[in-house]
């Protein structure tokens, strides 16, 4: 049976180790988000050059969410947000998870086993957001804490938000090396000979 956890950010290692694939999570507190490949490249450059990031990622919940932000009276406003596919950031994530001690990452579509390995080592989970859930996710935004790198297009910026009741999100990779996406792929691959045999049988009978 999967559990539903309401968790306060920042997450502790114990919070994260207590989660299992399939659990649901609802979050309160500060999250950092971006949907940009150039953003990930910039973060890596900063890491390599030993420079501080404009938004600290230490122990953060760092999500692959695209958001629309714009300059308004009194600072940036964020109009909506929604997940993007995480797998294209696979090459960056193991280093980020280890270097910053990220406690939660997420978006949609998952990450590969190299990322899952780093997550198990450090104590970090991958949280799956509903794709096409812009209104559900946006409704949880309480405050725009900071918008950095606003020379980039809106969804590439590094954005820090305070959220309340963000979720439910699904634990899709836990901190014990279990990766739901890899498990699903494996299950589908195991079923495939039977599926193809059934296709052949039905076609033959048609």
């Amino acid at each position, binding site marked *: 049976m999967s559990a539903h956890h309401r968790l306060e950010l920042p997450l502790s290692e114990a919070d994260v180790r207590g989660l299992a694939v399939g659990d649901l999570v609802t979050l309160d507190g500060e999250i950092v988000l971006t949907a940009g490949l150039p953003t990930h490249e910039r973060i890596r450059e900063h890491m390599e050059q030993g420079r501080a990031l404009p938004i600290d990622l230490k122990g953060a919940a760092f999500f692959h969410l*695209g958001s*629309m932000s714009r300059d308004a009276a009194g600072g940036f406003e964020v109009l909506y947000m*929604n997940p993007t596919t995480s797998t294209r950031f696979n090459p960056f994530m193991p280093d980020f998870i280890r270097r910053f001690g990220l406690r939660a990452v997420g978006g949609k579509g998952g990450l590969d086993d190299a990322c899952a390995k780093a997550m198990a080592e450090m104590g970090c989970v991958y949280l799956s957001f*509903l*794709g096409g859930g*812009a209104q559900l996710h946006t409704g949880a935004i309480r405050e725009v804490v900071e918008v950095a790198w606003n020379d980039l*297009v809106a969804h590439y910026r590094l954005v820090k938000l305070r959220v309340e009741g963000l979720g439910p999100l699904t634990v899709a990779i836990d901190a014990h090396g279990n990766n739901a996406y890899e498990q699903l*792929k494996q299950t589908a*691959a195991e079923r495939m000979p039977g599926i193809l045999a059934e296709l052949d049988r039905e076609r033959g009978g048609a």
Partner: protein
Amino acid sequence: MAITYEAVKALSADLYVWSLKKIPEDTKAALAEAEAAESNPSARETLTMMRRSAELAETTDSYVCSDSGVPVYVVKLGTAARLDGDIKQAIVDGFEHLVATIEPPILAHVTNPLTLERGHAGKDMPLITWDLIGGADYLDMTCAPKALGSGRWAALEIFSFPGLDVIERYVMDCVMKAGSQHCPPVVIGVGIGGSFDHCAKLAKLATLRPIGEPNPEPVLADMEARLRKAVNATGFGPMGTGGDTTALAVHVDYAAGHGFTPVAVCFNCWINRRTRARLYDDGRVERIE
């Protein structure tokens, strides 16, 4: 009376806005049906959230997804329709007007593939497929914005005199490659035959066919039912939660060709963005979906 530049410009923008805020009725019904039939609790919960998200967007006049995609239109012009003005430019201008005026603004997804710079305009944008309808006195326009999530997984391969078994295995290969990254449950379009470009177009147009309308050719109707069952047996499920619902529908179409047979496969994510209207000579707009 004639179909004017202004009318086409306005309709191009309207269709785009509608597609961002409302999912098609057939898709709503298919999601409800899937939710009722789903045996996996996490998958069922995900389908419930999808339906709630779609309803919330529609009732609050806001976007279902943050990725508004790139503008993709299918325009079928009746051969008996009269035109007044450059309707091709009208679609370009309609999208430009939309970008300038839509609230909240849409994100900059139009990408120059050579520099990876992003904006709202670019070469060949909007992407338009043109066709003719013999004898009709209207212009039939579909808008189906395409985003990375499901656009990324389309594929085409060319076979030589393939049997149906080879074609179906290729479809399943594409399904395996996409896994659950294209925001399932998806609508899958399959094109068979024709030429390289024609086949891709068949697959694309097949995704736009309303759910629940099988191909009129019995051979393909059977293939659609068989493939849908096969795809759902993989167990990827809604957003990769496992379960019985990976595809809402599989739509197949074909064209005669040579012995080299392209097979194209493409996907629409669960929000299945698609709006369509007809524009008549007298300026009347008939919204179809």
